[in-house]
């Protein structure tokens, strides 16, 4: 897409000749997602749109109880200590950010009075600062006013390493200053194209200064409010039993009109996804079930004549197979998969390409993910503005065999291809999880037909995803030839996600396998594209850099994308939940209601 054309389109939106929706559609057509399109507009001088309002109730309360089923219940309620999304989800019932994301990736105001833009002076043209105006008259649940001091405090609290806040990465490289009681300014060290990170979305909700000020740094774990939150949200805290139950009741002083709709909210934890689906869809004991990762035919069966249905939200999560660029079977200086080695089979690009052709994404979708999956050729599948249109995939055992034949890999006596005495035998590891083992089986079968011998290996998730230095079975050690999992994209921007695979970040014994580049793929062009993207203020050029980075991965077959996975939730038929693929499930909870 041409830069000039974009500029004129932004001009059209500004003058009202083109409506915002049409603009977003045009950008989507060239592969830019809605949240990014909105940020482009914001930088281009058109204010970000507030998400469309679909909220119907005309008075506060009266909706009875809202019963939520989280099969992994929250274990703590301080957003800065949240170890997983479940904890963020639980905290979000009571705490609020300045703004959240709606299903289209539009920003939605929560504690902020307006969305920062260049026109209202909120956004600096050089991308080095953002000024947020806070909503006046907002009160914490204990009656104290919410002010800029609270926002500044959250930054000080989280950036202190002694606090051990898990939100430190968001806060340590920024400076937050109070302009007046209802205005804060965030200063960035370098131009920051994606400025909506700190204080935006469920992971970055704001805790009250007056209750946490005495518990910063190493005293952070002693704060009584860690377990009994006092927030600004639509529901007031009632009760918390870690892993089992979170309860709240309507906040009569809530700052949004006619909200919330429900009188009480309850989040029950425990159990498994299938029975959660059953309790929502089949028996209607609960109104909403979180993260229903269940095979599609089971869900279809439950939905027949049931009391609920499944709902889907598109985000950017990709289930992928990563290829090891180093040799997992040779030990150098006490380390396998060492950077000093090269993978004996995958150093031949034909083998990597053939492997990619043997992944039958359509069958995986049909047999396993169903409505919750989309086939894709890309590693980066969202936001849409960053999705490459230059790639394609194909499943063909014949073509893969031909490719291998041409490259000199001839079938041996046992049917397994070999070349120069090296046999095409690979170890394929993943975490233990129903759909993953089924995917393994589908791919193994295709590989066998093409003369590649695949040994399957499954590792318990708690080991596979651990950072245990001594354990050789973690995904970061990658002591296998290929491995499959997914890394969630937690915000509508790919920067954190793509930075992982820069050459400097390879996982080695020296950095205790904490490097994020586990395929140990080294590519100078990729590094250059990422560095360029990170300092590029022009949203279109920035998106182009990320698309190029994705295409470089595609050309080198670093990852074989198996499936673009959608969020799956279960909801009662009459519930109107608002779920965004770019946010936590409870991020828009204040707008949920029930159709009478």
């Amino acid at each position, binding site marked *: 897409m041409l830069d000039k054309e974009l500029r004129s389109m932004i001009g059209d939106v500004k003058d009202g000749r083109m409506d915002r929706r049409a603009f977003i559609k045009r950008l989507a057509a060239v592969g830019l997602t809605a949240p990014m399109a909105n940020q482009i507009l914001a930088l281009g001088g058109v204010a970000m749109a507030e998400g469309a309002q679909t909220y119907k109730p005309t008075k506060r309360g009266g909706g009875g109880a809202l019963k939520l089923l989280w099969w992994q219940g929250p274990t703590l309620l301080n957003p800065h200590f949240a170890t997983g999304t479940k904890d963020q989800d639980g905290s979000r019932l009571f705490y609020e950010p300045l703004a959240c994301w709606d299903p289209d990736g539009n920003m939605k105001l929560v504690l902020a009075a307006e969305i920062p833009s260049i026109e209202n002076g909120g956004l600096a043209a050089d991308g080095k600062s953002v000024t947020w105006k806070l909503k006046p008259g907002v009160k914490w649940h204990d009656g104290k006013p919410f002010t800029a001091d609270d926002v500044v405090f959250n930054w000080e609290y989280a950036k202190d390493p002694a606090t051990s806040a*898990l939100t430190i990465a968001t806060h340590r490289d920024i400076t937050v200053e109070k302009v007046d009681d209802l205005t804060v300014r965030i200063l960035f060290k370098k131009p920051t194209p994606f400025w909506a990170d700190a204080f935006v979305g469920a992971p970055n909700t704001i805790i009250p200064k007056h209750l946490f000020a005495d518990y910063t740094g190493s005293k952070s774990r002693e704060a009584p409010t860690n377990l009994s939150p006092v927030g600004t949200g639509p529901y007031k805290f009632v009760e918390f039993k870690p892993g*089992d139950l979170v309860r709240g009741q309507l906040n009569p002083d809530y700052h949004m009109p006619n909200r919330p709709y429900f009188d009480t909210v309850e989040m029950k934890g425990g159990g498994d996804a299938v029975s959660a689906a059953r309790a929502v869809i089949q028996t209607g004991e609960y109104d909403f079930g979180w993260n229903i990762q269940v095979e599609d035919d089971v869900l279809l069966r439950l939905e027949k004549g049931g009391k609920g249905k499944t709902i889907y939200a598109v985000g950017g999560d990709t289930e992928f197979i990563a290829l090891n660029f180093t040799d997992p079977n040779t030990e150098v200086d006490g380390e396998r998969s060492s950077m000093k080695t090269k993978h004996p089979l995958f150093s031949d690009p034909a083998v990597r390409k053939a492997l990619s052709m043997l992944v039958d994404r359509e069958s995986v979708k049909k047999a396993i993910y169903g409505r919750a999956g989309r086939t894709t050729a890309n590693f980066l599948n969202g936001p849409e503005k960053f999705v490459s249109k230059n790639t394609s995939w194909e499943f063909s055992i014949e073509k893969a065999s031909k490719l291998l034949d041409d490259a000199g890999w001839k079938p041996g006596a046992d049917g397994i291809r070999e070349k120069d005495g090296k046999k095409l035998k690979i170890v394929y590891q993943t975490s233990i999880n129903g759909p993953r083992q089924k995917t393994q089986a589908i791919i193994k079968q295709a590989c066998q037909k093409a003369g590649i011998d695949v040994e399957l290996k499954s590792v318990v998730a708690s080991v596979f995803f651990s950072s245990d230095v001594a*354990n050789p079975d973690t995904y970061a050690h990658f002591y296998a030839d290929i491995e499959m*999992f997914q*890394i969630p994209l937690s915000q509508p921007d790919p920067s954190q*996600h793509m930075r992982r695979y820069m050459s400097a970040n390879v996982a080695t014994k020296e950095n205790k396998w904490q490097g994020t580049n586990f395929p140990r793929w080294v590519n100078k062009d990729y590094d250059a594209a990422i560095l360029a993207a990170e300092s590029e203020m022009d949203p279109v050029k920035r998106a182009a850099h990320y698309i190029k980075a994705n295409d470089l991965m595609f050309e080198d077959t670093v990852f074989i994308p198996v499936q673009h996975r959608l969020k799956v939730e279960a909801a009662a038929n009459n519930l109107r939940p608002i779920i965004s693929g770019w946010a936590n499930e409870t991020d828009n909870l204040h707008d949920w209601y029930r159709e009478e």
Partner: protein
Amino acid sequence: MSQYVLRRLMIAIPSLLGISAVLFFVLALAPGDPFSELATNPNVPPEVQAALRAKFGLDDPIYLRYLHWLNAMLHGDWGFSFVSRMNVDTLILQRLPATLYVIGSAQVLALLIAIPVGVYAATKPYSLFDQVANTLAFVGFSLPTFFTGILFILIFSVTLDWLPFVYTTDIKATGIHWVLEMIRQAIMPVAVLGLFQAASMTRFVRSAMLDVIRLDYVTTARAKGLGQAKVIIKHVMRNAMIPVVTLIALQMPAVFGGAIVTEQIFRIPGIGSLLISSILSNDTPVVMAVTFVFACLVVLFNLIADVLYGWLDPRISLR
């Protein structure tokens, strides 16, 4: 007698120390990491992970960690959960009522079924009643609880829609409605667990009764002209129940320890589900505390069983 109890308690100390050491080292050597979820979170830099490990003392040598743990435990500090960032004892106490209520009721149900059925079956061995009771008992303990649990859910919740299958700790009713609701939601888990236990216990009661019923003093009692009911209850049962009491005493720790599978199926927030979720998230302080408390209870109830034995059967003397 008191000397015997004291001596047993003294012996318990080294065995508990041994148990705690084994538990601790096995858990410390087990693979996994409480902060594993952070590894794939792009927001959490590796330094933070390392800082957290250091803060919770995970980088110290194992023997030092064990000594720290032991010292804290002696001072009544059960540890601090990595995952919930709260004290382990609070966490366990929160879970205890549900476990006591559900598992305790299941035990009572098991006894209420096993004793009458077992006794009656033993009085008429190989009768039709005995055959039926035996068959049902075999079926009962051959079916695992995860199977009967799901079967019950499908029949009573999904098809008939009579009972809820998600256990809630905050029932919104008060008074009699609260009691009724508590009973209603416990019916399925109690039945699943209780019937499973009753099956094996019935077999046990029956064989204990059969052992005693053939003894000469029973024949003597009958010869004296005592009625069947009196012979069975006063003469046979009193002696036959001695091994049963031991069995029940040894089951008691399980009442506190919870039932992992059943609690998971019905979402009962008990000790069992706490244990399994802590194991899955590598929350070692919680796993350690729960297993250690369980070990203490086993030791304690063994002692109680032995003491009861002496009291029930004066022929056994405790020295």
